[in-house]
């Protein structure tokens, strides 16, 4: 893998390569360049996940001609697909080096920080929503119970905007969550459940199910579960699989004609 990166940098296939390196005892993202080619020896693959594709969009915004290589797990790859669909990254300028991730029958072994999630405390299990529940199980509660459990989770929110900030597919210049008429500034907790549901609805056809938002949430709100539910509806109703499709999601309202079409029966 190190040799591939070196080769890419030497042959000018990529101008820089985003990967990970141990620095001060922490596995941190690092930008490998041709000038510091010997650093490539320290390239590591670990459980650590940062949103490298988000960094790539920052770089691409500064210099659209830049050829960027990056270490990509499956979730990174899905996020890159979404960013490409939304014209935030040029697929010609992005080259990925795929690493082992997300276990499946074909790939039993995986390196992912999300998989080593901590045990859910009993109180949360009793009154809130267990982060590790699947969409079906979480859907199994009665409507009233769902309401109580989710409101318990939402009222913990400290409005850090971490879920939005870390999200690899959140790139809008103007964010609804910062619009003062919709989400009034300076109130804590934020208006619930609107704050979370607005974000959830915007995640429809966008969320790549990477789980970074849940990793970054200081209050342990089961955001991944919420967005999974939203995207399962997108899949059921519009037959659109986020992160795999090469077309924009069915909700793109920009353009001349309405493109919203239902899944064929």
């Amino acid at each position, binding site marked *: 893998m190190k040799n591939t990166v070196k080769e890419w940098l030497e042959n000018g296939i990529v101008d820089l390569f985003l990967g990970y390196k141990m620095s001060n005892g*922490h596995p*941190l993202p690092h*930008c490998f360049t041709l000038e510091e080619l010997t650093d490539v020896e320290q390239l590591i693959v670990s459980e*650590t996940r940062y949103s490298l594709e988000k960094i790539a969009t920052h*770089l691409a915004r*500064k210099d659209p001609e830049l050829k960027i290589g990056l270490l990509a797990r499956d979730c990174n790859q899905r996020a890159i697909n979404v960013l490409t669909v939304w014209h935030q990254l040029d697929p010609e300028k992005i080259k990925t080096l795929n690493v082992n991730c997300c276990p499946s029958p074909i790939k039993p072994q995986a390196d992912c920080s999300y998989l080593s999630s901590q045990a859910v405390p009993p109180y949360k299990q009793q009154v809130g929503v267990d982060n590790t529940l699947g969409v079906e199980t979480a859907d199994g509660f009665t409507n009233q119970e769902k309401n109580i459990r989710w409101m318990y989770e939402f009222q913990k929110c400290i409005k*850090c905007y*971490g879920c939005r900030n870390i999200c690899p597919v959140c790139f809008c210049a103007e964010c609804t969550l910062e619009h003062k008429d919709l989400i009034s500034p300076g109130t804590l907790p934020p208006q619930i459940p609107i704050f979370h549901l607005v974000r959830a609805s915007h995640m429809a056809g966008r969320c790549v199910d990477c789980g970074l938002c849940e990793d970054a949430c200081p209050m342990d709100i089961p955001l991944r579960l919420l967005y999974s539910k939203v995207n399962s509806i997108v899949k059921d109703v519009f037959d659109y699989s986020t992160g795999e499709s090469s077309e924009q999601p069915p909700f793109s309202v920009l353009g001349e004609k309405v493109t919203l079409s239902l899944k064929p029966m």
Partner: protein
Amino acid sequence: MKCTFVPSICSYCGTGCGVLFETIDGKIISTIPMKSHPVSQGKLCIKGWNLHEHINSPMRLKQPMVKTFGRFINTNWDEAIQITADRFKEIIKEHGPDSIGVLVSAKMSNEENYLAQKLARAVIGTNNVDHCARL
């Protein structure tokens, strides 16, 4: 184009969350929580998430200012420190060292707070030391 990731500690409060500054060509672009940091474990509050904004803010004071005849005048560090020392000396001479109090901050590191109390006790000669987190 040069892109670096600089590990640091959030300067907003005494908790000491680990942050990572993403810089492109020497300018801080964004703040990322450091995932493996033992204190914050990859989480930040809204203040930590926006550290880069106050660093890049055009409102930020980049040099010391001295209030002269009711107006703030830009000056350099040497002069500002000299003026402060002179005024302290005057006050101590006139009213005694206990007329001065030192209020330290949770935004500084433990070591800086130690140095500040040392300055108060050994140089100024007062035990009037307090901390903003006790207010």
